[in-house]
């Protein structure tokens, strides 16, 4: 019996009512204002500001690429390409939120295209993932590595859904927007992937 995975989980689940915050004093507000300044300066041609913008988002873009491609050099190349595209598209971006959504969408599509181009995908679906042949204790030690390997065996779009969900903790609607697919398709990809991963990790394949 497989336990259902909760969908639509939010990042923060406060148990206490949040105290009233004064926006001007909020670090988040200051951060957002700083980001907006960086974007404005970068759009005006300030390369130092653009470099700061890259440093702000480079871990996100690089990690998406690394988790999808499983190769550091390939992930570095892809991240560079994404930021070059960002440079050429700066005039179309209005806010920091817009930049983040744009980077996620472009990085995701680049990853999917790169996997298709290189034909690195091993064609085993969620019901044909490799069997676990390791002892339980060893499996626990290497569970993260094993999970990455199992996810790497998923079809590229399903893999991207899992990475966006667990790396970026994105809501399903945002994943759907980023990948240009219906929310129900995202749910379906995620549900089937989780079921298959759980079966393989616990050795309960059907």
């Amino acid at each position, binding site marked *: 019996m497989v336990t259902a*995975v*909760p969908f639509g989980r939010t990042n923060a689940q406060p148990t206490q009512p949040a105290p009233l915050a004064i926006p001007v004093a909020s670090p988040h507000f200051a951060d957002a204002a700083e980001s907006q300044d960086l974007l404005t300066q970068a759009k005006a041609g300030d*390369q130092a500001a*653009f*470099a*700061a913008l*890259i*440093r702000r988002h*480079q*871990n*996100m*873009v*690089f*990690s998406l690429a*690394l*988790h999808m491609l499983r190769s550091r050099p390939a992930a*570095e190349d892809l*991240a*560079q390409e994404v*930021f*070059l595209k960002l*440079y*050429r*598209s*700066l*005039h179309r971006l209005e806010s920091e939120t817009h930049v983040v959504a744009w980077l996620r969408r472009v990085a995701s599509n680049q990853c999917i295209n790169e996997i298709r181009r290189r034909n690195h995908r091993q064609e085993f679906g969620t019901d044909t993932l490799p069997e676990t042949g390791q002892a339980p204790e060893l499996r*626990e030690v290497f*569970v*993260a*590595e094993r*999970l*990455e390997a199992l*996810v790497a065996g998923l079809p590229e779009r399903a893999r991207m859904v*899992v*990475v966006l969900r*667990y*790396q970026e*903790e994105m809501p399903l609607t945002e994943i759907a927007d980023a990948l240009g697919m219906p929310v129900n398709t995202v749910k379906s990809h995620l549900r089937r992937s*989780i079921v298959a*991963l*759980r079966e393989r*990790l*616990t050795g309960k394949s059907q």
Partner: protein
Amino acid sequence: MNLDHDLHDAFRRKQAPADLADRVLARINEAPAPSRQVGPASSGVRRWLAAAAVLAIAAGGGQYYAHQRQAAEAARVQKDLRIAMQITSETLARVQSKLSQPAEERRQQGIP
């Protein structure tokens, strides 16, 4: 085993190379001028200019074609007129020659 938790652990963000931004800037500076410098306004103007050029060429071509057709028609009419005048001239010459024949010869030939 908590798969949800394990997946969050496995897919945690990783550290990007420290010089990534520098490498991107180096590529920007070695590349030709970015397309953003063209700007949407000037690209719009370019599109309008291209459209105007196409229209001007089409209009000029049309006018040239009409002129050529007119010239060909004039040449044809001129040629027809020349032929008509030639025929008229030959007929008049024949009549003239017959009128200038002596009356006796005309009688012998049965011409009144």
